[in-house]
């Protein structure tokens, strides 16, 4: 960021009319050797003097740090730009110059760049002030603190807020006065910004020391007891060893090497080599060698024990002032509490979106199971079919929004039709034989999966979301949710509403509920259970197709897409209880929420998270064998 900025400054200044700058000339003349061979420790006053001379001085500094400043044999400084060169003092072009290029090291360039940024804080152009503030926020130094304090008041309100924040953060890090630092920390307490937490961390960094008594001059964080959590005996011994209090303990590998180096005539220290496969024999041999002086003595257990008893162990802050560390600790605890709360909210949003997906995937399964007591193993393939429908529509219609609008109803129609066909051809012939239905639909499932592979190939097909669904809705550093997931949540809500409407307000819904509760009675009341079962099957399969389009928007579309969701959908139905949409909703919320929580507790290991999830469900079934919302009435006994 600094580099292009300074180049920009440079070109802007080069375009200015040439004018002599006597102050700059004088500074250069006085410090020519410093400019030619600068050192990080001594260059600072020179840089400050040059910066104080005005725009030409700043231009010179940017050229210097960009390594485009050259020095002629007669001691003039030239700013080289490609093939041409201009005099740094007069700004006049210098033809046919061949100066010696100056190459300041990174330490010197750091000094120059801070000086440049300090100059730019007061620049009239708000964009450049903003850029300078951003660069300070990213990589602030003690020089910036002084520059910020010295700078003229900021007019732009947004920039003023930014500058105040940068000022507070720099005060916390670099101010020499502890009281000012404590005040700055307390003023910012409660903030959860990453930059604030990053500024606190170095203040709270600790090192471990071992000492015979409590050190008086150190800022002690806490005393450690050997055997504590995080401070086992081995760590204490290693600390003593690293402080030179204790001789290094003998490792088995060292022992072996030492013994191997002292083999004499088939034995070591009087022990036959063949016996050395026994650790006790090795110890005996080593002790014998130690006694003869052939190997250096190693710390024994007794010595280690004595050293441990003679020392106390402390964690010491690198920061010397205890007021600052106390304030920082308090602020950190506060920040962590607020952070935990926000992480909780974020986790809740994640869980909600996952639950919506499971709900969409499982609702069709739940309704068919409720009405017909059969599990449709091909349900996952209906999800996959919906996703492929979306993909096919997208290859035909270029406009992403329009293609999505076409794909959703089309996916519903395609999978609903497939569901009705499956019902007519297979499932109705296997009525009242749920296990056989499960197997037959499994046959359909493997056939459909292979068919999809034959038609669309094995590689993943993209189903791209329209531009307005890309990106994310972010509240702050912690809370954020991608727009697609919000859309899926809305879609799930929509289908919940639609489903409730169909079930509670339409003739079809009434008949479906009647068949679910008591098929025999419903039939004798003139309802055709076969027709109702077919309609429900179509409806459930159609929703699976919609779910497929939704899932395809954020996952890759492959022939195995359905397989990834089918087991979770089964779980949702089993946990939620059948024949009740609220049960499915509760099941989806439980499974979605729980998987997110387990994932959060063990983020490195999503596989373990899934294992625990399934184990939980198996145990859950022990207590609620019929799900969260069990079916009541006669149907429950079936």
């Amino acid at each position: 960021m600094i580099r292009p900025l300074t180049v920009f400054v440079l070109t802007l200044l080069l375009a200015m009319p040439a004018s002599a700058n006597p102050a700059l000339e004088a500074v250069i003349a006085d410090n020519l050797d410093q400019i030619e061979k600068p050192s990080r420790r001594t260059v600072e006053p020179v840089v400050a003097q040059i910066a104080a001379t005005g725009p030409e001085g700043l231009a010179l500094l940017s050229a210097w740090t960009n390594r485009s400043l050259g020095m002629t044999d007669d001691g003039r400084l030239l700013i080289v730009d490609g093939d041409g060169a201009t005099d740094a003092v007069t700004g006049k072009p210098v033809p046919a110059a061949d100066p010696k290029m100056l190459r300041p090291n990174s330490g010197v360039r750091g000094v120059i760049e801070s000086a440049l940024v300090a100059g730019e804080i007061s620049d009239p152009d708000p964009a450049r002030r903003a850029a300078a503030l951003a660069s300070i926020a990213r990589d602030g130094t003690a020089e910036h603190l002084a520059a910020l304090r010295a700078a003229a008041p900021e007019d732009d309100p947004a920039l003023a807020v930014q500058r105040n924040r940068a000022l507070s953060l720099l005060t916390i890090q670099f101010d020499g006065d502890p009281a000012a630092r404590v005040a700055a920390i307390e003023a910012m307490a409660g903030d959860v910004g990453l930059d604030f937490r990053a500024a606190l961390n170095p203040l709270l960094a600790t090192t471990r020391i071992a000492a015979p008594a409590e050190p008086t001059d150190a800022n002690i964080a806490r005393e450690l007891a050997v055997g504590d959590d995080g401070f086992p005996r081995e760590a204490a011994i290693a600390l003593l060893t690293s402080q030179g209090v204790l001789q290094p303990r003998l490792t088995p590998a060292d022992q072996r090497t030492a013994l191997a180096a002292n083999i004499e005539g088939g034995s070591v220290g009087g022990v036959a080599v063949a016996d050395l496969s026994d650790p006790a024999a090795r110890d005996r041999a080593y002790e014998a060698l130690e006694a003869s002086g052939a190997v250096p003595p190693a710390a024994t257990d007794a010595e280690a024990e004595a050293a441990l008893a003679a020392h106390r162990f402390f964690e010491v802050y690198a920061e010397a002032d205890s007021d600052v560390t106390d304030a920082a600790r308090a602020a950190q605890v506060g920040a962590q509490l607020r952070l935990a709360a926000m992480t909780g909210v974020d986790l809740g949003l994640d869980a909600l979106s996952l639950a919506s997906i499971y709900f969409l995937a499982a609702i069709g399964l739940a309704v068919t199971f409720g009405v017909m007591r059969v599990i449709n193993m091909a349900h996952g393939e209906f999800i996959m079919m919906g996703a492929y429908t979306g993909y096919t529509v997208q290859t035909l219609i270029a406009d992403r929004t329009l293609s999505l609008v076409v794909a959703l109803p089309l996916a519903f129609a395609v999978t609903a039709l497939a569901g009705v066909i499956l019902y007519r051809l297979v499932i109705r012939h296997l009525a009242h034989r749920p296990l056989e239905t499960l197997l037959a639909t499994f046959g359909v499932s493997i056939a459909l999966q292979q068919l999809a592979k034959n038609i669309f190939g094995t590689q993943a097909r993209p189903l791209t979301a329209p531009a307005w669904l890309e990106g994310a809705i972010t509240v702050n550093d912690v809370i954020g949710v991608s727009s697609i997931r919000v859309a899926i949540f809305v879609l799930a809500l929509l289908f919940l509403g639609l489903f409730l409407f169909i079930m509670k307000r339409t003739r079809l819904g009434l008949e479906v509920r009647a068949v679910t509760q008591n098929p025999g009675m419903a039939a004798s009341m003139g309802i055709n259970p076969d027709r109702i079962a077919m309609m429900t099957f179509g409806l459930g399969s159609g929703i699976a197709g919609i779910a497929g389009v939704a899932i395809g928007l954020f996952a890759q579309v492959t022939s195995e897409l359905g397989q990834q969701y089918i087991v979770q959908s089964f779980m949702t139905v089993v946990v939620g209880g059948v024949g009740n949409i609220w049960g499915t909703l509760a099941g989806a919320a439980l499974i979605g929420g729980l998987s997110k929580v387990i994932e959060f507790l063990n983020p490195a290991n999503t596989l373990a998270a899934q294992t625990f999830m399934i184990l939980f469900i198996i145990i859950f079934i022990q207590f609620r064998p019929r799900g969260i919302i069990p079916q009541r009435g006669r149907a429950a006994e079936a």
Partner: protein
Amino acid sequence: MTDRPTRQPFILRNPSILAVLAVLAVFTVAVTLLSQAYGSGVIPTSTVKVLGKTLCLALAAVAMDLVWGYLGILSLGQMAFFALGGYLIGQWLMYARTEAIVAASLAGNPIPPTPAELQEGVANQIFGVVGSSDLPPVWSFAHSLPLQLLLVVAVPGLLAMVFGWLAFRSRVNGVYLSILTQAMTLALALWLFQNDSGFRGNNGLSGLQNIPGLDGVDQARLSVWFLWASALALGLAYVLAAWLVSGKFGSVVRAIRDDETRVRFLGYPVEGFKLVVFTLAAMITAVAGALYYPQAGIINPAELMPIASIYLAVWVAIGGRGRLYGAIIGAVVVSLLSSWFTGGRAPSIHLPGYTVNWVDWWQVALGVSFVLVTLFAPKGIAGIVDRLGGIMPPRRPGRDPGPDQGALQEQEAKA
């Protein structure tokens, strides 16, 4: 009470047992005489291995038939026990072989290794691929063949017992139970897929075809030995299963399948019967797995994915449920056909405008034929055997109870 005739030995009451044993014996002798190690060499070693593995799958299918065909539990997690058996025997195979290799390499050192050093070397060799060098606690018994053989039976048996006890006592049955068993195998597979599960993550265990201590025996002979062992195990398990389902115990088990509630009301401890059969079947399946994976040479968590167990159910369904020989026929026919079709050796069918390549279309054909079998031949291939043998269902008044609700014993069907 009527006078009952003296009961014949159960083998004579079930002539199918003798037939199966005879076929198995003829098959084993024939393969031995045609093998490269002990005969004319017509059958290559790789084929002997495929046949040996197929016998193991048939053994697993017999256990599946016990659970599904006789007890009525459609277990979709049966292959979890199969793979567990393989993992447990694989632990010893891998440990013992690695130990020999490490011992040989450490023998070059000036000082003989301590047991701890030897174990560290072995752990490094085995777990280097997953970035670990400690031997996990689950490998504590891997050094001992007898202990590990005991575990092959004990661990899956215990798992089945705990799972079954939890499921049966809360009266989970039917489709729910199937889904739950599927969840169990998925959970186990996902756990094994982790690198820190102690089973080398998705690398699985490999090099299992080399038997420690038998370095002088070539694979040609080993494959025949394993074929014998598999055939023996299948024969013994068949007799055991047939004996189990032929007596009173078998009658109760079939009654549970047909109407669990009624059996419970008659005073039988339904859960106990279910638990015994489920656990026994898990043990048989584990033995099958322990014989299968040394022939396959490698095992990884993908073997536990639910799809494998569903295929096992497919074999049994196509072969014929409630008939132990049907399970064997189904497993042998479908698994051999599958490997023939997906191996690319089946000739393609050239239709006008399209060539049916069996590698692509076999799954479709299998799926469709599976649906057709379920719809039109619910008794599977064994139904044909029944018809040839003149075994017809007795005329019962009322509607057809369906294959789930009234399969027959052989002598009942003859009456």
